[in-house]
């Protein structure tokens, strides 16, 4: 998280820390047996093996000796996710992990709500994005934090985001494309953003005192740079697939 703050305990209880073959990623609790994350965090990896993936919950600080993973039973990547080796296609960047044992919820571990049917993403609405990904210290030095951080970011109008990406594509050839299964969040002046290691983590919107999972940290060009936005998987587009996958498994 760039430009964010440390999350106090129990404030983002759905946050999940994934460690996949040593790569740090995020996820969110959506049920007592289910974690939602980004497909690119788990794709192409034998993630159902507990040697490959470790799942941690209820943490606001990663401390050696206090980590107690929960175990995955199966991983379900969206069937239309086709990010090949060039890693430029983030469409349908969503996956579900089923846990071996159900979790009992408490103040430090709690599920985030799924979007309501027909949920809308209102431009400018402030969301909360969190993770254990890289942060930025003084002088643009990127460092990996062991503390859960969060930042509030507004939903960006789709066209604005699209224009920013088009602009980037003029100078960079390997910029992924924006689809309707994605949305952007961030501020044009930069300094606040999600970043590497936050992938798969939650971008939540709040309504009537409840947080719902609007987005999954997916991709972006650089982090926190002026004129760029973070791109998130639009969870509301996947309600049918999520429900179907959970019911069938």
């Amino acid at each position: 998280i760039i430009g964010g703050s440390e999350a106090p305990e129990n404030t983002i209880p759905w946050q999940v820390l994934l460690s996949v073959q040593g790569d740090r990623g995020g996820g969110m609790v959506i049920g007592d047996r289910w974690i939602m994350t980004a497909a690119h965090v788990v794709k192409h990896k034998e993630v159902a093996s507990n040697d490959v993936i470790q799942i941690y919950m209820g943490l606001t600080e990663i401390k050696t000796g206090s980590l107690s993973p929960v175990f995955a039973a199966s991983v379900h990547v969206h069937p239309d996710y086709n990010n090949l080796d060039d890693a430029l296609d983030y469409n349908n960047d969503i996956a579900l992990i089923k846990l071996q044992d159900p979790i009992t919820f408490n103040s430090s571990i709690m599920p985030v709500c799924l979007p309501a049917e027909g949920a809308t993403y209102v431009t400018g609405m402030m969301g909360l994005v969190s993770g254990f990904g890289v942060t930025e210290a003084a002088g643009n030095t990127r460092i990996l934090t062991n503390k859960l951080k969060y930042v509030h970011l507004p939903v960006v109008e789709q066209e604005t985001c699209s224009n920013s990406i088009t602009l980037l594509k003029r100078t960079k050839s390997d910029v992924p494309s924006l689809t309707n299964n994605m949305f952007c969040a961030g501020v044009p002046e930069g300094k606040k953003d999600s970043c590497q290691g936050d992938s798969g983590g939650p971008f939540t919107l709040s309504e009537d005192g409840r947080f719902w999972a609007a987005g999954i940290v997916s991709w972006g060009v650089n982090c926190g740079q002026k004129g760029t936005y973070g791109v998130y998987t639009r969870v509301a587009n996947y309600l049918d697939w999520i429900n179907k996958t959970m019911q069938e498994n």
Partner: protein
Amino acid sequence: CWRLPDSEPLMYGEVQSPQYPQPYPPNLQEQWDLSVPEGYQIRITFTHLDIEASAGCHYDALTVLYDGKVLGKFCGHENSADGHHPGNHPILSPGNRLTLIFLTDDNNPERHQNVGFSAQYQAIDIDECSAPEPGDGSDPLCSQICLNTLGSYLCSCHHGFELRSDQRTCVLSCGGGIFDEPEGHLFSPGYPNPPPHAVSCQYIISVENGFTVSLNFTDNFHIESVDTLQGPVCLHHWLQVTIPNREPMKLCGGTRPGLIVTNSNTVTLDYHTDNDGQSNGWSLDYSTNRVRCPFPGNVAKGRVTPILTEYLYRDYVYVRCEQGYKLMMDGQELDSFSTMCQSNAQWHLPLPECHIIDCGEPEPLLNGGVTFMSGFQNQYLSVVQYHCNEPFYSLLGGVNVSFTCEADRKWRSNNDIVVSPTCIPVCGQPTKHISAYQR
């Protein structure tokens, strides 16, 4: 000659004159010896008779004889003025034999060819019992009871007598009489007439276990008693009534005893007279009653049915518990209960108890719990309420649900739901919020 095999006498048959229905030849002397089984007599009927008519049947004649005695001599035909025609009247032989002799002379009238006769006979059962008593002072066929049978008769005797070896006369024998019907009538030999002297009769009334015998003597009771200083005693003649486990009692005198309720299913009556004196005897009707069991009692929280004024042998009572209670006996639960009044006047099972039912522990609720609201030890009508571990879980449907232990031993909600509720996770509501006061 050789002996023909014996054959059973016929029960019926037909006899015809030679060459019938052609005219009979002259100079005939034919004889038929008819017989039927012993105990029957023969009835013969002429279907046709046409024999040369003459006065006294002097020339041609058919003679019917029994044991040498002529029963009839016939000739002529139905419409002839002379001769002797039997007409349609059958002839009955006194016994089981009959002889017909047909004689013709050598002279037959030329103008009329007589065809002879045709007759049919059959055996008729003799009712030996209806025969009048012999007037010559000889003994009747049966001394007491005569039973006619087909072809014979049987003699029988009144109770207290048995048939002698002559199968005709009866001798006093009144021992060994066992009366096992639920009711009956007994009387002394020859009653109401005096029996022969030196009678020793035993009557045993023995009915099924579970019944008791009562004796009711009829008015005409007469057993000789002897008057002594201490009053009349049954010295030479008596009727002794023996009831198990009680002192035997001797009855005599001219007044019938009152109703004797024995409370036993077995009574022995011994009637004794000696060679002197005279007793006209006695008769009685006996009846039976079922034994009575004690009142079965009451069952707390239960009902004993049916409610009767008395409970007799083979009566059943049933016990049902009130709603919410179960039948228990010796620590075992019973599906149903009934007990029967036995022949020994005891119930075959003691009454059970009604214990309050319980529904067992309410189903535990995952991520929740159950609270007792009222009641005791999960018993009938206890009320529990489920709750979820808030604020992380909430009840599906959102309303606290109470369950009551019902009579079917299931915890049920007011909506008749049996399954326990479900706690669903609360999403998106952290217990602590990120505070941002800085502007």
